[in-house]
């Protein structure tokens, strides 16, 4: 099979729906194993931090969520770009679930960060460079989602969302750098937020497991969202009708 054939097949929502149905159980199993293992290991067996005690354990949710929140924006933007350039249906459909997921993960990382901040620094919120950038990222996600809901036609909504996501992608490094610069200029200097460079392996290994688990979870949730989107958009085609008809019988 040549590459172009493969590419076209990948772009077919029907093919993807059928193929992803086969991947789902494996992916779900991997997600479950990794997340349970990571959580039990991280929360139960990893040693408590010397200074922060047990409260540091929120890192096992916070860091993976933040990872995926950032990666998710690029997933969304790349999907949007592919949709715009090659008019690939599947990529266009992926944008909406990717935006919702990304916003949710950004919110989780902000929320857990606030919870973590309270016992550690004595405050829920500081205007730190990284936190502020995350907040801006959250706003960028919200903008894409709001734009999606504003258009009545889903096709137009996806394309508009794709343009905005691309503009956002160009802007993210600029926003990040300027927020960074702004922070160094103001120098509150009460709280040092640099990551512990020497994390003990016993603490670090569960974190890696959790990050992998979150990646699997992200893929799983994205595929599930994408499948729902495929069914919704292709609901007038014959194969979807047959599928639903069969399920009903």
């Amino acid at each position: 099979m040549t590459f172009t054939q493969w590419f076209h097949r990948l772009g077919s929502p029907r093919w993807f729906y059928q193929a992803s149905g086969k991947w789902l159980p494996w992916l779900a199993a991997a997600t479950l194993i990794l997340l349970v293992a990571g959580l039990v290991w991280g929360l139960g067996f990893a040693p408590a931090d010397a200074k922060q005690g047990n409260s540091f354990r929120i890192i096992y949710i916070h860091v993976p969520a933040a990872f995926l929140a950032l990666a998710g924006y690029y997933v969304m933007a790349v999907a949007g770009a592919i949709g715009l350039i090659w008019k690939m249906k599947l990529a266009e459909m992926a944008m909406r679930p990717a935006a919702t997921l990304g916003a949710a993960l950004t919110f989780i990382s902000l929320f857990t960060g606030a919870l973590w901040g309270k016992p550690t620094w004595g405050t829920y919120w500081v205007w730190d460079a990284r936190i502020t950038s995350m907040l801006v990222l959250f706003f960028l996600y919200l903008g894409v989602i709001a734009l999606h809901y504003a258009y009545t036609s889903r096709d137009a909504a996806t394309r508009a969302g794709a343009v905005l996501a691309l503009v956002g992608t160009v802007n993210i490094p600029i926003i990040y750098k300027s927020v960074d610069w702004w922070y160094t200029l103001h120098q509150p200097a009460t709280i040092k937020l640099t990551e512990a460079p020497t994390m003990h392996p016993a603490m670090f290994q569960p974190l890696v497991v959790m990050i992998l688990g979150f990646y699997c979870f992200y893929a799983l949730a994205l595929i599930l969202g994408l499948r729902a989107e495929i069914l919704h958009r292709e609901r007038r085609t014959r194969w979807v009708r047959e599928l639903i008809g069969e399920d009903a019988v």
Partner: protein
Amino acid sequence: MLVRDLRLANRRRGDMANPLIFFVMVATLVPLGVSPEATRLAVMAPGIIWVMALLASLLSAESLFAGDYRDGTLEQALVAPQPLWVLVLAKITAHWLVMGLPLTLMSPLLGIMLSLPPAGYPALLASLALGTAALSLLGAIGAALTVAIRRGGLLLSLIVMPLYMPVLIFGASAVQQAVDGMAYGGTLAVLGALLAFAVMLSPFAAAGALRVGLHG
């Protein structure tokens, strides 16, 4: 297109004046809400003037394509022989000339109202002149995306505000640095770089967004 837009703006002076009046009115709200004390106001003046300029620019960005969309000029522009981005750039330039430039020229007045230290005025003028142009360019992308949506104004602000943040940071910082007696040339240069970057990309993005907005 540029000349036409300027002429249109001249005929509807009321629309043109609204963002400026807004700019001055919010400036009156700040001392009422916070404190009329000159020392306290002076501390906040650079940031507040910049935030207000940003909001005024945001409010007026909505009208950038709305009129042309309603009377069909935009449809004509899409099929015109000139590339769309040239027309978009012309419209943005007109927008800046009727909004950003007067706003910049009025800013010393606000500086006086908010007792900005004298050292800040040159930086205020320079940073607003560069910054409002960048804001107009970025706002155009949002305006193009939301032009076909009913009540797109609020949505426009949601979309564009995160993109405005770097401009705000560097603009307000330049004024602050000038007030503190530091060299602010470098910060202005960054602001100029942001503007140059926006000039390069934003007309294309806005033109693409217009096509999407109008034809789905």
